[in-house]
C-alpha cells in the first residue's frame, strides 16, 4: 500500500515535471516564430501612416495616481507627449493625502468643470472633474475621487470617463516608451483572426536605468541582485511566455502596468473588480468570457518589445508583499472562474490557457513545496539514490538556465537592449543563481499568498454557512 502511494506520487510528479518542461520548449519555439515574424513585419511597417491618417482610432490613456506628489508633474507631461495623433489623458487622483492634486492644479491651470458624469461601472464617489484652461493641455482630464483602496476602483472611474473606443491602462509611476500607443494599436489594426480586445507589451525593471526627466537615456540591468532576478523573470515571462501564448491566441493576462483594451467589451464585462488582488488578469478572463458568451471572435495580442519600465521591489520584504498579493490574486481568479476549467464551450481558454494556469501556475509552488518535503522525508529514511537524485537536479537546473538564456537571446532579436555586451553577460550569468537564490523565495511567498487566500475564504464561507444553514448541515451530515 505504502509502496503504491510513493510510486504513484513519484510517477505523477514525473509526468507533471515532464509536461512542464515540454510546455516550456513549445513556448520557446512559438515565441521564436512570433518574434521572427514581428521583426520581419517591422522592417517595412510605416508608423507615420498611423500618425498621418484621419481614420486612426482615438485612445484614452488612464493612469490612477495615489500620493505621487514627487513625480506626478513630469509623469503627466510624459503621458501628454506620447506620439499619437488622437488621444486623451485621464489622471485619476484616488483620494491622495499629499499634494498630488494641488500640484496638478497649479501646473496645468486646472479648474473644476460641471461634468455630466454617467458611471457605467460603479465606483467610489467622484468628487469633481478638472480640465485645463490652457488650450495646450486640452487633452488632460483629472478626476478627483474618494479613495477606493484599490487601483481597480480608480481605473474604473477613468474607464467611465473614457471618450474613445480604446483605452490604455497604466500606472502613473510607470515609464512608457514614446511610441507605446502606436506600437500597441498596430495589432488591433492588422489582426485578422478576430476582434482584438486587448494588447500588451513587455515590462522591464527601471531600477538601474538612467533617466533624463522621464525619458530613458541608458538601459541597464539592475545592479542590485533582487531586481536583477526580476528583470530575468520579466523577460522570460513576457518575451517567451506571453508572446508565445499570444501566437496561438491563448494569452491569459495583460499586465496591469501596461495594456490597451477595447472599451466597449471591458465595460460590458463589468470593468475591473475592486475586490480582486489580481484585477488585471481577472478583467481579461471576464472579457474573454463575455466575448465567447456573445459569440465575438476575439484575439489578445502581445508585442515582443519593451514599452514600459517599472520600479521593481528591491528588498526581500517588499518583494514578499508583492508576490503574496499576486499569489492571492491568482488563487482568487482560479476559484471564481473555476467553471472554465476544461470547459469546451470556452474554446482555447477553457481547454488550454486556463488549465495551464491551474496546473502550472497555481499548483506549481504547492507541488514543488511538497516535492521538497518528500525529498527531505526520503533523506531522513535513507531511501535516496544520491547519484540519480543529483543527476535529476542537475538536469532540471541546466534546463531552467537554458530556458532563461534563450529568453534573453529572443529578447535581443527585436532590439539591442543594454549598451554593452558585458551587461548582457552579467544578466546571463545571473540566471545561474536564480534557481537557488530567488526561486525558493518565490515559492514560499506564493504559498504564503495561498494561505492568506484560504484563511480569508474561510471567513466568507462562515457567512455563507449562516445564510444557508439547512443545506450545509445536510451535506456535512453525509
Amino acid at each position, binding site marked *: 500500500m505504502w509502496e503504491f502511494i510513493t510510486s504513484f506520487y513519484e510517477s505523477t510528479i514525473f509526468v507533471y515535471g515532464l509536461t512542464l518542461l515540454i510546455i516550456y520548449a513549445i513556448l520557446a519555439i512559438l515565441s521564436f516564430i512570433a518574434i521572427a515574424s514581428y521583426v520581419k513585419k517591422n522592417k517595412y511597417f510605416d508608423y*507615420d501612416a498611423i*500618425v*498621418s*491618417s*484621419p481614420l*486612426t482610432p482615438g485612445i484614452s490613456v488612464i493612469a490612477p495616481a495615489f500620493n505621487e506628489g514627487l513625480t506626478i508633474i513630469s509623469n503627466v*507631461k*510624459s503621458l*501628454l*507627449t506620447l*506620439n*499619437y*495623433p*488622437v488621444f486623451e489623458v485621464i489622471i485619476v487622483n484616488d483620494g491622495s493625502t499629499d499634494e498630488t492634486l494641488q500640484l496638478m492644479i497649479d501646473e496645468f491651470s486646472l479648474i473644476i468643470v460641471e461634468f455630466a458624469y454617467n458611471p457605467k461601472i460603479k465606483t467610489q464617489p467622484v468628487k469633481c472633474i478638472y480640465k485645463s484652461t*490652457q*488650450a*495646450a*493641455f*486640452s487633452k488632460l482630464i483629472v478626476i478627483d475621487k474618494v479613495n477606493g483602496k484599490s487601483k481597480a476602483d480608480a481605473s474604473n472611474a477613468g474607464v467611465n470617463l473614457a471618450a474613445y473606443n480604446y483605452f490604455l491602462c497604466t500606472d502613473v509611476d510607470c515609464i512608457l516608451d*514614446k511610441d507605446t500607443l502606436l506600437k500597441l494599436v498596430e495589432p488591433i489594426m492588422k489582426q485578422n483572426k478576430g476582434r482584438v480586445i486587448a494588447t500588451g507589451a513587455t515590462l522591464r525593471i527601471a531600477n538601474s536605468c538612467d533617466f533624463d*526627466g522621464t*525619458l530613458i537615456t541608458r538601459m541597464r540591468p539592475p545592479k542590485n541582485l533582487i531586481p536583477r532576478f526580476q528583470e530575468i523573470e520579466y523577460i522570460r515571462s513576457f518575451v517567451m511566455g506571453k508572446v508565445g501564448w499570444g501566437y496561438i491566441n491563448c494569452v491569459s493576462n495583460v499586465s496591469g502596468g501596461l495594456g490597451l483594451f477595447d472599451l466597449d467589451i471591458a465595460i460590458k464585462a463589468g470593468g475591473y473588480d475592486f475586490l480582486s488582488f489580481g484585477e488585471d488578469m481577472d478583467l481579461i478572463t471576464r472579457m474573454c468570457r463575455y466575448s465567447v458568451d456573445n459569440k465575438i471572435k476575439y484575439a489578445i495580442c502581445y508585442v515582443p518589445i519593451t514599452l514600459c519600465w517599472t520600479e521593481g521591489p528591491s528588498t526581500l520584504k517588499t518583494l514578499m508583499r508583492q508576490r503574496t498579493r499576486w499569489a492571492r490574486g491568482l488563487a482568487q481568479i482560479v476559484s471564481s472562474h473555476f467553471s472554465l476549467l476544461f470547459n469546451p464551450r470556452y474554446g482555447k481558454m477553457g481547454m488550454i490557457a486556463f488549465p495551464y494556469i491551474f496546473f502550472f501556475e497555481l499548483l506549481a509552488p504547492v507541488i514543488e513545496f511538497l516535492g521538497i518535503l518528500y525529498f527531505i522525508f526520503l533523506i531522513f529514511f535513507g531511501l535516496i539514490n544520491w547519484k540519480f537524485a543529483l543527476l535529476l537536479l542537475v538536469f532540471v537546473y541546466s534546463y531552467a538556465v537554458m530556458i532563461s538564456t534563450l529568453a534573453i537571446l529572443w529578447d535581443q532579436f527585436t532590439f539591442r537592449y543594454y549598451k554593452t555586451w558585458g551587461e548582457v553577460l552579467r544578466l546571463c550569468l545571473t540566471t545561474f543563481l536564480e534557481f537557488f537564490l530567488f526561486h525558493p523565495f518565490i515559492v514560499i511567498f506564493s504559498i504564503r499568498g495561498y494561505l492568506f487566500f484560504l484563511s480569508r475564504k474561510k471567513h466568507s464561507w462562515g457567512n455563507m454557512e449562516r445564510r444557508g444553514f439547512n443545506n450545509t448541515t445536510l451535506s456535512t451530515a453525509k
Partner: protein
Amino acid sequence: MQKILYIEDELLMQNIVDKILSREGYEVDVANDGKMAMQKLIENNFDYSLVITDIMMPYANGFEIISKIRNYTSPKKIPIIVVSTIGNEDAILEAFKLGADDFLKKPIMAGELLIRVKRLAGQ
C-alpha cells in the same frame, strides 16, 4: 540677420531643413525636443524672427511650445509655422487656435516652406 528656431526631433528632416534655411541666409537654431526648445527660447530671451515647430516630440509637445510663446508678452509677436505628420483635423485646428500662423503637413515642399518662411520672417 533673421534668426529662426527650428524644433524637430527627426534628425534627417532637421539637418536638411536647417541647411536649406541657412543657405538662404537665415541664422538657424535647432532643438531636438520640447525641453531644448524652451531652453533656447529662454537663453535668447524669445528673440526669434520665426519659430518652426513639430507637434509630436518628447518633454513638451508643439502645442505647449506654441502656447508658451504666445503667453510670453513681448513687444513683437513671433510668427510660428507648424510642420507635422499629424493629419487629424482637430489637431490642425488646435494648432491654429493656440496661435500658429501656418501649418504644413509632412511631406513638405522645400520651395513652399521657403516662401512661407520669407513671408513670415522677412528676407
